[in-house]
């Protein structure tokens, strides 16, 4: 069995008066996008920097395709593309010259360098900006350039720290599409972001951190299953809403009912059969149901349910 693309193993890291990371372990597989979620100061950036060989832990280790970032940082670096949360391109270089410099720094030569720079710039939608000064790009294009630079050496693991912060909605959507394409090409992506709905849409798995400790991790479906003891149900009716409310209040399994005109939202303790039975009986009782949906917990719900909002 091959080693996971990224394995964080019992990681500890402290700074003066702050325990940034405590006994953190998780894995990431090829082709997987894993969201790294937590309040400010939860230890996300510290963990990412250790994985990117830019910091060292007090204890524990991180392995990239089985290579320890502590024992073989140079070998690990060849497999990692790290996009930090800050990006300051060189002055007096245009987009293409900037990419060309980093391609040289990655050891690419001659035709291979030209081809790679062009294909990466094309992939990131930078070709039409090739002659623009790298310092004169918009935030969104700057992030694309940052990503392009991160991908030049074709790393198998991308570590992206808050890549979407400061981007407008359109740029976010485009950026998300880029990441999905990269994951489809077999890259593993570890991404941190504060924009949880967006992470929820693109991530296969999440690791939720609080005060340096992992509070929950796994695929979104697994976590939904684990944290969602009661499913939230939304029902909208036509006609006599009071009768519908009376019906729901008498039905076993229906939790605290919230009513907004003819729309009801309530937690329901029961499986899908019990939910079907509820709908059938409501219709049989003359309730004119026009909307009946079960709402699954999204990443925001998971985050709120699993973290306590403790900052450090």
């Amino acid at each position, binding site marked *: 069995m091959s080693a996971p693309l990224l394995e964080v193993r019992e990681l500890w890291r402290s700074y003066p008066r702050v325990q940034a990371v405590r006994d953190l372990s998780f894995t990431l597989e090829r082709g997987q996008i894993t969201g790294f979620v937590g309040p400010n100061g939860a230890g996300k950036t510290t963990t990412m920097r250790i994985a990117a060989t830019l910091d060292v832990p007090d204890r524990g280790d991180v392995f990239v395709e089985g290579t320890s970032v502590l024992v073989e*940082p140079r070998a690990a670096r060849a497999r990692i593309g*790290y996009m930090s949360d800050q990006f300051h391109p060189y002055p007096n270089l245009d987009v293409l*010259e900037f990419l060309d410099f980093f391609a040289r720094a990655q050891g690419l030569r*001659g035709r291979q360098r030209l081809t790679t720079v*062009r*294909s990466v710039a094309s992939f990131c939608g930078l070709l*039409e900006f090739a002659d623009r000064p790298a310092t004169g790009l918009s935030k969104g294009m700057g992030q694309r350039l940052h990503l392009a630079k991160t991908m030049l050496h074709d790393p198998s693991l991308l570590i992206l720290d808050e890549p979407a912060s400061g981007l407008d909605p359109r740029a976010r959507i485009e950026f998300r599409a880029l990441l999905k394409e990269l994951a489809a*090409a*077999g890259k593993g992506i570890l991404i941190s972001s504060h924009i949880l709905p967006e992470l929820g849409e693109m991530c296969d798995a999440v690791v939720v951190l609080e005060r340096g400790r992992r509070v929950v991790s796994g695929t979104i479906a697994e976590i939904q299953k684990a944290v969602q003891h009661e499913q939230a149900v939304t029902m909208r009716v036509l006609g006599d809403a009071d009768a519908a409310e009376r019906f729901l209040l008498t039905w076993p399994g229906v939790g605290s009912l919230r009513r907004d005109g003819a729309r009801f939202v309530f937690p329901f303790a029961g499986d899908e059969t019990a939910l079907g039975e509820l709908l059938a009986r409501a219709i049989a009782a003359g309730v004119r149901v026009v909307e009946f949906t079960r709402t699954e917990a999204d990443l925001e719900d998971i985050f709120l349910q699993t973290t306590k909002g403790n900052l450090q």
Partner: protein
Amino acid sequence: MTAADPIVSAATPPSTLPTEPTRWTLWSDRLNPILVREVLQSVKGRVFALTVFVALLVSVVIAVVTVNAYEPRGDAGRMAFNAGIATLMPLLIFVVPMQAYQSMRLELRGGIVEQLLLSRLVPRRILWGKLQAALVQFVLYVAVLAPLLATSYLLRGVDLPTILVSLLFALCACVAATAFAVSSAAQGVLPAMQPLANLATAAGLGLASFAFVGFAGSGAYTYSVGWLVRSNECTLTIVGIALATAAAVVLSLLVAQSFLLHAFENKSTGFRVFLFALPVVAFGWVLAFMPRSSHDEFLAVFGMSLLVVGIVFGQFMVTEQRELSPRLRAHVPKSRLASLVAAPFLPGRDRGMACLVLYLAWLGGLVAVLWPGTSSRWIGELLRSAGLCVPYAIVYLGLGRWLRGFLPSSVAGNHVARVLLPLAVVVFMILPALVDLMLRGDVRGWHVGHVMNPFWTIDVHNRAEAWSSVLPWAIGVSIGGLLLQVPAMVRGQAEVAAAAAVRRERARTA
């Protein structure tokens, strides 16, 4: 997907986007990427254009003034050369190093240097790239002022050797100043060091430029170089300055590299090897260029200086973290013999102590082997002072190693220990003086209470008449101090041996 295999088919590129490698592209592949980028940025930047323009303007003004002041058999040519050198040197020892400094600071401030370190560029290549870029700028600035220097030659102001030696010294100054500037900028990795680095660089380079403009403007520089060129000491001075420049550059780059390397990389071996190489270079220069009659003086002065340098390096060596990092443990030499030889050069304060002891033996051994046998009175005093420095080095550095053990095992602990150790020396110097002051009302003379004050004690006991009484004590303290350090040195050695054994075992089972 590989680097050669495009992620997506490229869209139609703009016309400026190259599709085929040009001759320049292929040729520039052999160059350091930092050099390529720095030159590109300089050429496109305003600072370079402005300084070239100003230099051209100044050289035109000097030429016009020279032509107006020209008289047959006058000194217009020399004046032109003085003015040309006074214009060139600030460019070489201020503008070029400050550009390298700013470039490094920008990379550190923007986190770009981290991105570079994640590439295949190791710190050494990044730093060499910056030095190479400085060399290119040196050539460009010299080219700008070359017509003026040529004119001064044609006007018979200076001869060709003087021009060439002046340019050689200018090159040495430019490279050393750039290395210093890059090293200062790299120390800005630590936020606390940034203001200090800014101040040291700006003040150091600025003062050096002002001083040199005055020196060259007065004509003293040309006169000195002209005298040197015609003297018998020309070769030894040029070689000496070149060696000193090389040592300064290597040391600056080692310092800069230590701030840029991954925390678990080996930051110590370079310094330790450099320390061991210094006596070879210095004594080699003495033997190769100095007359035999001066060997004793130079060996004594260099020996004493290198002892002090060793003690300063020793302070850093004995205040490091004790253990090898996981990375270094995994990379110690596999063979028993190689690991035994390499151990004192590997990081760790216990091994640092062993390295210091070996260095003292190495230095003492070289001086003893090369000593010509003759000595004057002051040389005798200098050698006795050096002899008395040894027990102090062992005692105080042993104390530093011991103190370091009480501090946190982090890098911050190293820094604290490096402040505490000199502080301890100062306290041991001041405390007995204060006691004297309180008990007797003044500090009359040396007594045994001042024995921990190395400067006073050595000054009092380095005379021939006191030597016989103090020598047994010096030897006894040195041996006693060494014996106390033996367990630590053995422990340091054992750690390397154990790591080597693990590597051998892994290789056997693999």
